[in-house]
Every structure is written in C-alpha cells, then in structure tokens.
C-alpha cells in the first residue's frame, strides 16, 4: 500500500525535499542516481531511488537497521547489480554525470574487517594495495607509491602506526587505515559503509574529522552510511534518510522533520532535539515496530 502513496511515488527526491538545489545539481553533480530499485527475491530493498550528489559535499546515509542504507551504498560501489535504474558518474575533470563506473574514481571503505594478528602485513602495505593492488605483476619499490602512501597516512593521522602489523591495530586505527587505502587512489567519490559502528566516542570523532577534511578541503564527495546521525551533525552537508527502501535527500533541517519522515515510515514519528542531539522517536501506538528506530537515542 505504501508504495502507492502519492506523496512519494515517482517523486524525484531532489525536487521534493530540497527544491532549491534541483537546477544547481545538474551542473556540479558527480553522481546521479535515477529510478534505482533493488530486490532480494520478493523483498523490495530499494524502491525507485532518485538523487544526485555534488562535488565536495559530505552526505550521511541514515536510517534504521535493515532500511537499505548499505544496499544503496553497495549498489553505488557496484558490489551488487540493481534490478532497475541507472547510476551515472562524472569524469574526474567534471562535466555532467554520464560516465560509467569504470571511468569514475571510487574509493570504498568496507565495514570493519577482522584480521589474524599474525598476518604479515603492515598498515602501510594495506594502504599501498589501494594504490596499485589492482594491477597484475609484481611491483618494484618506487618513490611515487611511497609518497602517495605517506600522504594518505598523514591525511588520516595514521603515520605513527603505519609500520604496525595490521592485525594488531585497534578498531579506530584500522578504520583510519582503510580510509587511507581508499584515499591513496585519489578518488572523486568516497563511500564508507558504517565507519562509525563499534568505535568509541573519541575514535568516531576522529573519523568524522577526517571525512570532514576530505570533503571540504580536498573536494572529494563523501557518502557515509551510519545508523546514528548525531556524531556527523557538525560535518554533514546533506542527509539521505532511508526507510523501508525509500529515500529523501536534503539538509538535516529539511529532511529530519516529522512530516517528511512520516511519509517515509507511513505513520507518525516525532523528532526530538536534546542538547544538540537529534532523536527520531516512533509513535507509542505502533509499539514494537516504532521501537525499531529507537536506535537514534544515545
């Protein structure tokens, strides 16, 4: 039934929730998603998503568990094939987003990986794989690669543990190394899958500072999946709110409003602001289902 909702159906989200940007995005968009749908068997995970991302903006992909956030990111990264719709990228030097994924420079940071503490790999070797790991043949040690790796390590403030064994890094350190691995290839779009989960407050804050710098100083567009928007509030330009496979994009003030979220959830929700934190709270009468998104609470 919800799919028939006239407010949502076929609405280009960029024009709905953020009408101001509708014309501007066409010029400076680096990523254009139109009519994207993904289904797993009978389950519709993403339903007719339309959105575009501008150069050098930091966008949080936010929503409750199982809403389709990671699926959206993985579809953009090319890790799964959508059933319908197109994803277009701008070339590195600009222009309208017409290029396919192969011509785009994508950096991808996976969810935390676990490694055996004895794997004979230093953190800088993992970063180096981002530089030339996709090439066949052996590589000779070269200054270009070393400089790129050092730069990437410095960018994420990981120079001091660059020589440590990667299997013995802490969660926050490993996360920074994975970001450096993505940055070393000088991407125009950086995709991060739940980079803040299972990090303590201090490490999460460090990661947010890094992506903030990457987006706003280096001009890389950053898309970041997270289930808690609060750590990102200070750095985020726009927000993609995903619920039940549908998405709205806009600034936090435009999107995180009861009437907008109500159209996504299909029932009343409240948005509560407490001491600079935003909580989305379900209506009491929906009981368990509403509780699903209490995760925004600290």
């Amino acid at each position: 039934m919800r799919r028939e909702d006239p407010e949502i159906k076929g609405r280009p989200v960029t024009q709905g929730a953020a009408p101001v940007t509708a014309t501007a995005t066409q010029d400076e968009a680096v990523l254009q998603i139109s009519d994207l749908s993904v289904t797993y068997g009978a389950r519709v995970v993403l339903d007719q998503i339309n959105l575009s991302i501008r150069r050098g903006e930091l966008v949080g992909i936010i929503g409750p568990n199982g809403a389709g956030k990671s699926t959206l990111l993985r579809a953009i990264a090319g890790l799964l094939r959508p059933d319908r719709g197109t994803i277009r990228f701008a070339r590195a030097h600009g222009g309208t987003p017409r290029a396919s994924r192969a011509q785009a420079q994508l950096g991808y940071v996976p969810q935390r990986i676990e490694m055996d503490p004895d794997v004979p790999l230093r953190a800088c070797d993992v970063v180096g794989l981002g530089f030339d790991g996709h090439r066949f043949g052996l590589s000779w040690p070269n200054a270009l690669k070393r400089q790129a790796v050092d730069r990437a390590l410095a960018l994420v403030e990981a120079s001091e543990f660059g020589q440590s064994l990667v299997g013995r890094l802490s969660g926050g350190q490993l996360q920074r190394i994975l970001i450096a691995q993505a940055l070393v290839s000088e991407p125009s779009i950086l995709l991060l899958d739940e980079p803040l989960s299972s990090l303590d407050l201090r490490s999460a804050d460090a990661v947010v500072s890094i992506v903030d710098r990457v987006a706003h100083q280096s001009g890389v567009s950053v898309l970041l999946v997270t289930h808690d928007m609060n750590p990102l509030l200070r750095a985020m330009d726009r927000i993609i709110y995903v619920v039940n496979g549908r998405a709205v994009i806009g600034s936090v003030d435009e999107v995180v409003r009861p009437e907008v979220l109500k159209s996504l959830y299909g029932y009343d929700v409240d948005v509560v602001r407490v001491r600079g934190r935003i909580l989305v709270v379900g209506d009491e009468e929906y009981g368990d289902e509403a509780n699903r998104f209490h995760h925004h609470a600290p």
Partner: protein
Amino acid sequence: MWHLLWPSGLLSFSFMQNAWMAGSAVAVVSAVVGFFVVLRGASFVAHAVPRGSFAGAAGAVLMGQSSLLGLGLFALLSSLGIALLGRRRRGAVATALVLVAALGLGDLFLSIGNVYAPEVFALLFGQVVGISRADVYFVGSLALAVVLVVAWLYRPLLMHSVSAEVAEVRGLRPVLLDGIFLLLVAAAATATVPVVGALLAFSLMVGPAAAASLLAKRPSTAVFLSIALALVSVWISLWLAYITSWPIGFYVSAWSLVAYLAVRLGQASRRGRTTLAQSDGALKTTTRGNFSG
C-alpha cells in the same frame, strides 16, 4: 536376480551381524559429533584426528599392543595438540602441523616395524567384515558415552559453536568447550576408524551432517536428520559392499557427496534469484572471515 540383491548371509553371518551393529553405532556417533563439526566449520579437525590416530595404531601394532589402544591414544594426543596450538584463530595451520607430525611418526613406525601391508591397508580404509563381537561392544559403549556427553552438554556446545563470544559473555569457558569438542572428535574417531578406516572416518562425520544442516531449520532437527542420513548411508554402503566386495569406505564417501550435492543443487534451483542476492551478502561475510584460518 533376487539373490544378487539379497545374497545369503547378509544378515545371518555373525561377522555381518557384527558389521551391522558396529556400523550403526558408528553412524550415530559420527552424525552427532559431525553436527558440531559442520556448525563450527571444523572439517579439517574431523579429518586430521582420525587420520593422525592411524599413526598410533601403526605404533601399537609395532609394539604388539591392540591397535585400538594406539588409535585412542593418538586420537587423544592429536586433539590435545590441536587444542593447545590452535588458539587465536590459527586452527587450520595448527591442525595441519599436528597432523603431519603424527603421520611422520606413523611413517616411522611403519618402516621400523615393517608392518605387513594389508593390515595397514585395513587401518587406512577400514575392514568392516573383520569386526569381532568384542569390537562391537567397545565401539557401542564408546558411541553411547559420546552421545550421552553431547546430550548433557548440548546447549553450551551449541551456543559456543554458534558464537564463541556470546557463550563467553554468558560465562561459558571457551577453552574448556573447545577441549570438550576435540575430545568428542577423538572419541568418535576411535570408534569409527576400525570400522570405516582412518581415511574415511571423517566422510561419515561431514557428509550427512552437512546435508542435514542445509535442510533443517532447527538445530535439534539437524541432529536427528543427520543421524538418519548417516544410518541410511551406512546401511546402504554395507549392503553394497557385501554384494560387490568393494571397500565400504568408497560407498560411504560417495553417498556423502551425493547427498550434499543433491541438497545444494536443490536449494540453488529453488532459490534462484535469492541465492544470487545472498551471495552478495556472503561476500561481506567472507571479508570478515578471511583470516579465520
């Protein structure tokens, strides 16, 4: 025609009666332990412990002792070795090293003792028709002991196998449970090796349990389904081995593969598109599990 399919002596010869009884006991114990083997992804251990115990049997024959004694001792020693070396997610490497060390010893015993080859052949590939009534009692009581221990520790073992972390939080000691699991494998190996041989003991542990865990949705159903599949596979194998006089291990392992493949193919064709979608999720799992070796 009929007497080819039902030759005389299939049930009446006393050695065949022993084979039926020992084979059934072995099937039950392998299936029960095999359920946990599959759940924990520990096929290598299930292969290495019986195989390593072969060295002990060779050593026992060399010293003029009962081969069962050597089997049991070496099964115990290999599982202890794996338990001690294999912590910190290096299980497979430790298992490989313990296994080759045991086999190296076996090689030494064989060349020192100059053991008569057919006897070794029987240890490797099993000799189901050579089972005495005393062997049946031994195998039967060992199987009963294993089943009782599993029944007693079923819940902790299950929780530990599914998620070691959750089990630890609930106050279960992972080292202890790892040890108990390995001891169960050792006991199952000791019971199984004389019947189906050191090389194929693990095919009974892995095959039926693997097919059962794909089919069943609940753990307890998987255990019983795995027992049923193992019993059917042993009975059919015994019957075929008796008719053709080919080694029983061949039939047991062939049935394991056929059952597993049939279930895998059945699921793949039923799911179709779903499997594709899930394999994407599966790749994600691989990311995390890649170094679990």
